[in-house]
């Protein structure tokens, strides 16, 4: 009898822990979800109230660099706006996804890329963003953006001084006038554009990179895939007459 009791005790403890984990987890989830106005459906998209609030914040945000770095059609009804940090690994991982979306939708969307360097944790992110803007002054913003993301692993660990040299290498590779590139890197206009984009990011509460907005709605983490983004863009395209 005592033995039987002894063999049941660990099972009872395990069962109790499982029960506490499931019930406690559920209550914890419910309370957190209530605070964040989570939608009760399974697709993890925020509810209408929260989306509206985010859309208002988005529309009232600082304008950012003008004109923005834009691909697609400036008058398209669907705007995809990305905030990214060139030194953020996830941003580099999501770069091919953004490229595929741009290639797929072409002039049906307006794709805006804004730099949002997380300067407290990434020592070269700001310089990288300025370099892209300096390249943009010679019409090669997207070439530099692509160089920075696709070669991120090779410059990530370099010191900021060595990184300057790498930026000049990329500038040569994409056919920039090096002297002008260096002057633009040092000048105020490129930095101001980066600062304006950062200001816009802060004003619309960008808290992590990358952040994608589709017509003002921030994408859920799970939607940052080609399929997820297509679904969100298609939903917006269907709302407006072509």
């Amino acid at each position, binding site marked *: 009898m005592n033995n039987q009791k*002894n*063999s049941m*005790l*660990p099972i009872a*403890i*395990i069962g109790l*822990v*499982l029960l506490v*984990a499931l019930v*406690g*987890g559920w209550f*914890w*989830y419910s309370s*957190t*979800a209530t*605070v*964040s106005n*989570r939608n009760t459906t399974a697709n*993890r998209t*925020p509810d209408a109230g929260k989306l509206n609030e985010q859309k208002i914040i988005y529309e009232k945000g600082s304008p950012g660099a003008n004109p923005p770095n834009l691909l697609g059609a400036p008058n398209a009804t669907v705007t995809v706006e990305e905030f990214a940090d060139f*030194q*953020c*690994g*996830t941003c580099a*991982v999501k770069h091919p996804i953004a490229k595929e979306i741009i290639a797929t939708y072409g002039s049906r969307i307006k794709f805006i890329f804004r730099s949002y360097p*997380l300067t*407290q*944790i990434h020592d070269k992110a700001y310089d990288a963003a300025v370099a892209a803007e300096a390249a943009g002054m010679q019409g090669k913003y997207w070439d530099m953006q692509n160089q920075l993301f696709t070669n991120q*692993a090779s410059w*990530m660990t370099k010191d900021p001084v060595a990184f300057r040299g790498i930026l000049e290498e990329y500038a040569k590779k994409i056919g920039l006038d090096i002297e002008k590139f260096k002057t633009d890197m040092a000048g105020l206009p490129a930095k101001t554009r980066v600062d304006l984009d950062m200001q816009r990011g802060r004003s619309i509460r960008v*808290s*992590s*990179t990358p952040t994608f907005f589709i017509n003002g709605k921030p994408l*859920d*983490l*799970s939607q*940052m*895939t080609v399929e997820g983004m297509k679904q969100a863009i298609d939903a917006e395209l269907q709302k407006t007459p072509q």
Partner: protein
Amino acid sequence: METTEQNSIPKLPLLASLLALGGLADAIYLTIHHYTTEPVPCGEAFDCGAVLTSSYAEINGIPLAVFGAIAYFTAFSLAILTVFGNRLMWRIFGLQVVAMGLFSIYLIYVQAFVLKAFCQFCLISAGITFTLLIIALISKFWRAK
């Protein structure tokens, strides 16, 4: 010596079960934050968003934290069964924490070299896993003596 071994072995599974509970709580916390999409509080030196929203944070749409919770619950159960005398469970526990340790090394590699960003909750989990592994190794070493 025989007496020392008899007394010390159950202490290690008991310690392991408590640690596994800590790991379970950490994994549940990350799972909840994943599903509510609320950002986790993150220290200055960390970039939790980059880690927890990366493509490495999910397997077929299921967050890694769910697998972590299952692994810690299993480790807890095995350790508790050992505390109550089922020594076979301790061997299975040893094998499991070796697998968990290897996977943790892979996740640390991803954070350090692929994402170049760390998340403290992921590092806490890795720390718990490595401690469980050390406990299993100490236990093995002790028994070998």
